């Protein structure tokens, strides 16, 4: 229920932000085909992999004018999953994500440019209460109708964040500061 409220609010916000653009397409993230995965160094020896299981959001694609594209994503930090309950509990604690204080990790684009592979997106990432500008390239943009009547598109990107820049700076000796993130998502076009 809460999820759908958040999704609806996000979609509405995006739609309301660009009411006059008829050629733009608004998509809602398809949670089933969206994944936010990350890996972080453990003792400098290996990578620990994890993901967030509750991701929602929406985006707007304007094929004619990339500057009018927009992306917005919200991730529930509580949904972190590294395949180990005890570790997940610790990652939820104030030593890391502090999910009781910062239940959402969010991204909102501020500028989008067309590039050869797709879109170069700049935006504000809010994590652990701190907001920083990040930039990444979204690769993809192919479209498909699946199942029949449901139009969708998808993108993938990779980026590296320093968690300490978001004031998540505990235990950097053991657990790497650089967090490698891979995001892949599909969106379902909303009917006009």
């Amino acid at each position, binding site marked *: 229920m809460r999820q759908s409220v958040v999704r609806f609010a996000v979609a509405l916000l995006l739609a309301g932000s660009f009411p006059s653009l008829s050629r733009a397409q608004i998509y809602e993230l398809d949670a089933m085909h969206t994944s936010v995965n990350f890996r972080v160094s453990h003792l400098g*020896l290996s990578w620990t992999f994890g993901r967030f299981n509750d991701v929602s959001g929406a985006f707007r694609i304007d094929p004619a004018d990339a500057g009018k594209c927009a992306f917005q994503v919200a991730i529930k930090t509580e949904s972190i999953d590294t395949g180990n309950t005890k570790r997940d509990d610790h990652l939820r604690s104030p030593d890391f994500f502090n999910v009781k204080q910062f239940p959402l990790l969010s991204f909102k684009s501020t500028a989008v440019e067309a590039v050869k592979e797709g879109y170069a997106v700049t935006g504000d990432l809010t994590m652990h209460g701190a907001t920083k500008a990040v930039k990444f390239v979204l690769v993809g943009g192919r479209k498909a109708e699946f199942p029949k009547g449901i139009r969708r598109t998808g993108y993938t990107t990779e980026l590296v964040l320093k968690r300490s820049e978001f004031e998540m700076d505990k235990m950097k*000796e053991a657990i790497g500061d650089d967090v490698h993130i891979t995001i892949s998502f599909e969106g379902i076009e909303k009917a006009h």
Partner: protein
Amino acid sequence: MVNQQRKPRGAGKLPSSLRCRFAEGENAIPDPVLLAQAFAASALTAAIVVWLLAWPWNAPHRWRSTLGYLLGMASAMAVACRLLMVRPHWPPRVDQDRFLFVLLPSLFCVEMTAAFHMRPLLIWSLRLLLAGGVAPILLYGSVYVSDSAGPGTRRWTPYQAVLVFFMLGLALSTVWRLLSKLQRQTQSQVVPLAVALSCLGAAATVALSGYASIAGVGVALAAAVTGCALAARISRNSPDLDTAVSLSVVGLFALVVVGRYFGNLDLGHAVALLFAPLLSWLPEWSPLNRFGSTGRGVSRLVLTTVPIAVVLALAYQQFVRDSTRFAPTSSSEPSLQDYLDFGK
């Protein structure tokens, strides 16, 4: 892919023996040796500052001894935080930062005001006001009281929030008033030591409950109060330790609240840790009051230690159970101790 782990910023500025060493495994607990070193350095700092401010005068004015305690405790906490690499951030967005940047300065202002205005009604009005504000400040902006995860997501209704904050404020006020009264009645260094002991126990229990980085704050608190008690012990004029009791009680309460609401501290453990120092009252009423002051002092510490030790043992058992539940069975795999020893 080759991992190029960066050296943490600032780590090189400290002697290697004092660098914060954390072991990461199923959970992460700061190195006990480092904690002990930080405790000793911090307590010594507090003792020196308090003693220096009290020393030149046979009977220092109350405001000067209060100032000495406040400066001593502030510098002791700064030393401990530095050694344990507790890095507060401004603006204070998380509980630890709000404790260090909002609550402690507020407490210092209240205690300084109390030093100038001796009327108990005014002093306790300010303290009660602060007691009522501690939990709301620590939980400010959290999922309990705000819709930070989206509209309608706050966990407590306004009515529930008021009720919870009232109960928490009442609990803190009760413990604070009773321990302050005991301190004034006995003029003993044991009362703040009992609360410092509880702070240490609370910090360790909360750390074992999944909020490891709070241990540094708990050690800093306990060390600051212990240093003050030490200075009062060696001082000729034995200044009043009411200020140290106030700091330790508010600190203990803050540890328990953040452990409960941001970590996974068990409710029963939280209650036991908060009220354990009140057992220091028992020697005043029971047959123990036949003992001399030293005997009563020792019995106060022992009585306080018992519930803390029980809670700590239970928390440790749970920690080990949780860790081994997910630990590999092969003997070639690292144990919890291996993680604790990593980097030493």
